[in-house]
């Protein structure tokens, strides 16, 4: 049981990393908290579900469309964020909170409140390994998440563009003085964020029921992981995602399924109370 929990925790955690990366990237570069993040993930999931279920597209082909859809919304969102006045972080929270309500209700209108699941039969089968059970779904989740993380890592640490992004996250003024166009970096962050959301959405639809108000939980996860990691540390996000995945997985064993939802909230509150700049952050400001 414990090994199964460990495996599912790691696999879930890897997926959480995927979910949080877009949020963290947008926040890091533009200092905008996007509370509509979870709603966008669910929206991407719905797009994929619709194509898969109603138009019978192959599941894999739904990803590009989901990405395109979130990309458009995110670029629109960026325009709105750009109009905000100080205090930026707080106002971005209020604005995106309104955005979350708007998207939630749009989804309610289009897709109704019914629970939907992208049920791909092979994913629910699995391997009985000695001591634990590994489903193909978990395996796929793990594999895809790690691949995305690896690609993002290479992008951020091995290319000039990525270095410029990281530089912008760490010190906007100094980045501009190095000749980096900070505004373009902001747009880039929203685009990358949108791609990550578009990837995460359909996957989310495979492992979790889709319904309009479930986005809230995803947003909370993303916030928790981002705050845990502090600004601009990819390594921190990976660590935080796994810790959160494992914590939830073990909480289910120890206390039962219904307590799982509290894990992220309690973790976030504890972080904010004791280490508001992140576990790894040493007071960057």
């Amino acid at each position, binding site marked *: 049981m414990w090994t199964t929990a460990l495996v599912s925790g790691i696999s879930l955690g890897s997926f959480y990393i995927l979910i949080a990366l877009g949020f963290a990237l947008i926040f890091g570069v533009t200092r905008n908290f996007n509370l509509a993040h979870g709603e966008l993930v669910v929206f991407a999931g719905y797009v994929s579900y619709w194509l898969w279920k109603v138009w019978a597209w192959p599941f894999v082909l739904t990803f590009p469309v989901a990405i395109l859809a979130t990309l458009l919304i995110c670029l629109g969102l960026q325009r709105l964020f750009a109009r905000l006045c100080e205090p930026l972080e707080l106002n971005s929270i209020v604005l995106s909170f309104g955005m979350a309500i708007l998207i939630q209700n749009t989804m309610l209108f289009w897709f109704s409140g019914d629970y939907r699941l992208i049920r791909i039969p092979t994913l629910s089968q699995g391997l009985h390994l000695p001591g634990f059970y590994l489903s193909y779904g978990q395996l796929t989740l793990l594999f895809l998440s790690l691949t995305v993380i690896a690609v993002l890592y290479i992008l951020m640490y091995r290319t000039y563009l990525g*270095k410029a992004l*990281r530089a912008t996250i760490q*010190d906007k003024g100094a980045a501009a003085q190095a000749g980096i166009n900070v505004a373009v970096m902001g747009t880039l962050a929203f685009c990358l964020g949108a791609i990550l959301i578009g990837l995460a959405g359909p996957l989310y639809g495979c492992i979790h029921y889709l319904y309009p108000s479930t986005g809230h939980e995803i947003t909370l996860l993303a916030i928790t992981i981002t705050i845990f990691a502090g600004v601009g540390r990819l390594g921190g996000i990976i660590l935080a995602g796994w810790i959160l995945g494992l914590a939830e997985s073990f909480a289910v064993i120890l206390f039962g399924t219904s307590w799982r939802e509290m894990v992220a909230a309690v973790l976030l509150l504890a972080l904010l109370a004791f280490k508001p700049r992140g576990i790894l952050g040493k007071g960057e400001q």
Partner: protein
Amino acid sequence: METQRPILKVCNLNVHYGDIHVLKQLNLSICANQIVSVVGANGSGKTTLLKAVAGILRPVQGAIIYHHKQIQTLSVHEVVRRGLVYVSEGMNVFPFMSVLENLEVGAYIAREKKKDRLSLVFEIFPLLADKLRQMAGTLSGGQKRMLTIARGLMSDPDLLLLDDPFLGLAPKDANRLCDALKQIRRYDITLFLAGQHVRRILRVATKAFLVEEGKIALAGTGEQMLGHPHLRETLFGIVAESGVEIP
């Protein structure tokens, strides 16, 4: 003479900071391959001048002409692309990047010249070559200052603006930096410094200006300025009155 070619001209510059009129009709021109220093009392507008030239502050009126082109409407990164690089007084390195990565980001707009620039930087700041893998956030203050200047050099500047480069440096580091500045000039880079460490800054300068109430009050070579009674009076009003010799 080749060195007399003007590289930067500031004409009738007016800059406001909030509702304070900081620079008032300021005029100044800088020739290539010099070390030019601006001194002045706190709040006289030295930093404002540098920031306006670098495109960080937008002038209300006036022109900044760099290589015969007006640049006062460009944004910061466009100014950098033209070879005019500003290094602020804060030691703002990218803390979670290695020293090498910091330098690479500096070369963001001069990628093809990265290798040459790196070797130049290591020649001027050999200390950085030993610390390439270290996280910049863990460097000492003096090393951070050197890294920010080195990062500025990586952008392949013609004109390097240094805001109070000696601020917060221990004497040893300040001496080392003085040498480095003189060395930088040999690579055909014009230096434009501002700062409070009057004596150091004037000593290293080939040309110097005194800013007073948002205008250039005095100009001359560094040595001339050091001996000028007006400068002594402005920067330390009491001295003239009490008739004490500056040590």
